[in-house]
């Protein structure tokens, strides 16, 4: 599956107006989305790289090694949440904004970490060269088990790095998903936890990553088969059409390739 993207930066004061414009363009009400995003990093499992086989299996082993050790990527695990999930009312005297894992402080909280659905999202580094006016990258996603996700991810060779929340509104315009969003960070008190939070802080305590409060407009279209040139062309034409339509409001552009690099170094 391939993903074609265009981005635009939307200053905070334009946000409301753009929401209305997009609602008019797509003839639909915005769909509010809140997502927990956990960042995982692939790491080499010790002992796999020095597996040596017989000579007749050499080619296979080489290929397997290449697959296992060739590219290491960051991946994201995405879980949809809703605003009520943030309304934590801890009855205990503990600090509400430091939900440490392990302290079973579930009293009053509507958020249930153990039934949180997850989805794995893998995004490759955008393709170089060919389509310089559009960001195209390989994309794949898979549904993951609910609840505690760190254990299975560790077993697959991924370690937890950090997490953040994405808040925004999505619109659908034919095949294009327009997502006007911003990144929210958890309030930090002391040390960053090494595991996903089991409880969510109050929504008001979440701070935008971009201090000015500006939003990112992302127009994405997914293509089943990235090797089908015809389809890729159609998809990028759709995106360019949208760019033309939104020209007077925002300027959609491709993103810097290296800023979307997901390779783990």
């Amino acid at each position, binding site marked *: *599956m391939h993903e074609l993207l265009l981005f635009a930066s939307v200053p905070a004061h334009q946000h409301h107006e753009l929401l209305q414009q997009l609602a008019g363009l797509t*003839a*639909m*009400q915005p*769909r509010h989305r809140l997502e927990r995003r956990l960042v995982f990093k692939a790491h080499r499992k010790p002992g796999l790289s020095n597996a040596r086989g017989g000579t007749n299996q050499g080619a296979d082993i080489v290929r397997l090694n290449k697959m296992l050790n060739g590219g290491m990527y960051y991946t994201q695990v995405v879980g949809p949440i809703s605003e009520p999930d943030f309304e934590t009312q801890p009855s205990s005297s503990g600090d509400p904004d430091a939900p440490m894992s392990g302290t079973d402080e579930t009293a009053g909280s509507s958020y249930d970490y153990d039934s949180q659905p997850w989805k794995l999202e893998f995004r490759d580094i955008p393709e170089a060269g060919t389509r310089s006016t559009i960001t195209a990258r390989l994309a794949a996603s898979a549904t993951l088990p609910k609840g505690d996700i760190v254990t299975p991810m560790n077993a697959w060779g991924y370690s937890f790095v950090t997490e953040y929340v994405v808040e925004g509104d*999505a619109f*659908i315009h*034919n*095949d294009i*998903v327009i997502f006007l969003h911003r990144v929210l960070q958890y309030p930090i008190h002391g040390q960053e936890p090494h595991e996903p939070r089991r409880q969510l802080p109050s929504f008001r305590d979440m701070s935008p990553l971009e201090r000015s409060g500006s939003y990112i407009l992302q127009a994405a*279209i*997914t*293509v*089943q*088969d990235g090797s*089908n040139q*015809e*389809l890729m062309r*159609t*998809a990028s034409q759709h995106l360019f059409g949208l760019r033309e339509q939104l020209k007077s409001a925002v300027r959609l552009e491709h993103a810097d390739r290296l800023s979307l690099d997901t390779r783990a170094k």
Partner: protein
Amino acid sequence: MADSFTLPLRPVIEKRDRPDSLPRDIAQINAQWGSFRELSEASLREKIEADKNKDPWAEEDEVEKETADLDTSERKEQLYKRRAEIIQFALQAHMEASFALDFVSLLLSKHNPRQAETSMSPFLKTAAPLGSLNSEIINPPPRPDTALKDIKSVSRGWRLQNFNSAASKLLNAGTRLDTEVDAEKDYWDQVLAIKEKGWKVCRLPRDGQALGVQYGFLEATPIFRDRGLAALRRADDGKLVLDKGLIPRKAQGVRVRIKQQDRISGCSKVCRPSQDAESIESRILQARDTLFEEELFHEMMREARILGNQGVTTRQNLVTIPVSEEQEILLDLVDWDQDHALEEAGFSSEQNDLADAISHSIRILLTFAHRQNLRRRTQPPPPLAPKRRPTLEYQILRPVMAYLQHKSHIQWLETYIAKLRRVLEAAGIRCDFNATQFSSIGVLQPSHLVPKVESLVGVFLAPFESTFSGTLITPQSSFRVRIRTNPTIPPVGTFYDISVNLPQFPDVQPLSRVGLQEEVAQAITHFVMLDIAAAISLQNQEGSGKVSWEVAYPHHGELLAVDTAGQSKKMKVSLSHEELNIQTYSLSRAEGFANPVAAKSSLLSYTWNPDTPGPQPSLADFVAQASQT
């Protein structure tokens, strides 16, 4: 503002006293008419009339008339002569023009030799050197006073005339602007009125100068969606005109008719255009309704084509749906104002309610389809693939058909069971039947994801289910018939599932997926007959000193009894939905099976028929009688 300061634009014309007007008029009349006596009002009027009627080309016609009399050779000669004359005139004109050109060129060549040279004739170039002619301004001789006075009055007249025309032009422009402003004001007032009523007013995508009103349905098929936009144009007088382009102006709608045995027995109500047909609002409404109806018919046609395997036929402007053997539904798109005459043509209206119900349901189903489209459109789309998603036919006819079909099956089964019950009651057998019709409807699972309206319609798109159950004569035995009609997912159609609980006959298996009504009828009668046979055998055990009947061949309804003398008797039960018949035969044990026909001799026989008047003996009485040795 206009009142505050007015500026006279027309020049003020002084009234001149004309002391000499009369003598001048008399002189003119004398010159024109000869004598004053010949002038009268009548003659003047005649003259005016004559001038009015006179053809400006009449004189030429007269000439032509003359020429027509001449014969051809003379005409030819005359033609040549005329032609020569024309040519001569032309040549002369040309010559004079050349002279004038030469003259002017020579004159100019003094100051601008190069340019003047180009327009000089070659002869002049050789004859006269360039710049040999010059001109100078000389003082003209002083004009006489009379000429000066003339010029003065003429120029004064000219100026007055120009002022006049300028003034009238300005005033015209003023009034034109006035009316224009009024018209614009009217137009915008009306546009605002439309907007305030909640219609979506927008700029036309193709024609950026014009305004449009959107009345179509956003979720309709693209061809109909794009037609739901009409331009709001302004007539010259400021009236708002709804410009729908090439769409026919007539109001159209889908009409539902019910045909019962080749006779129209019901027609849906005609939606008449409102009284206030001229107001812009009602015209927008009418345009919207017509669009909706056209789309409805279009979608029904599309659906009807895939329903060919279920007997649905389409003509150019007609969809025919068979409901049962004698009932058909006709759907067509008609002009609303056209079918009044047809209505009066006199068909019965006993099934108007059904037709109205159908016409409402198909409209509800189309709007439901629109809502589904919105739902689908606002979901994240699947990845772009080479194969486009096919646009599925909406479910408009199928739920209606399934409902009607289901209903007719229920009615059939109900009447059948009622008949059977009457037969049984005639024989004094009590049995209970109860029916749960459309048990699938009415089970509405509330969900916060789907609005209540949509889940309500959704129920009608699911398979319909009804159950009939009844208890039989012997205790603990019962039967249950489940009717299911599936509108969309194959196998479409109505199926019966019959489950039966007969403790006496544990090997009797339930029947499932029966499609034919005859088979269902047979099965039910058979099960009831089995139960009657079982009941007879059970009843006998109570009595003492009588023969006891035992079920021998249950599926043939035969029972056997052996009395004390070794004489064996046979009882045969036969049941149909019209009557119950029980016969007993005596047959000797020895030859009974070898030659049953010869051995048989009927002892007792009774037929229970619900139509027989008077009291009838009950089954129990008859069996008791038959059991007597």
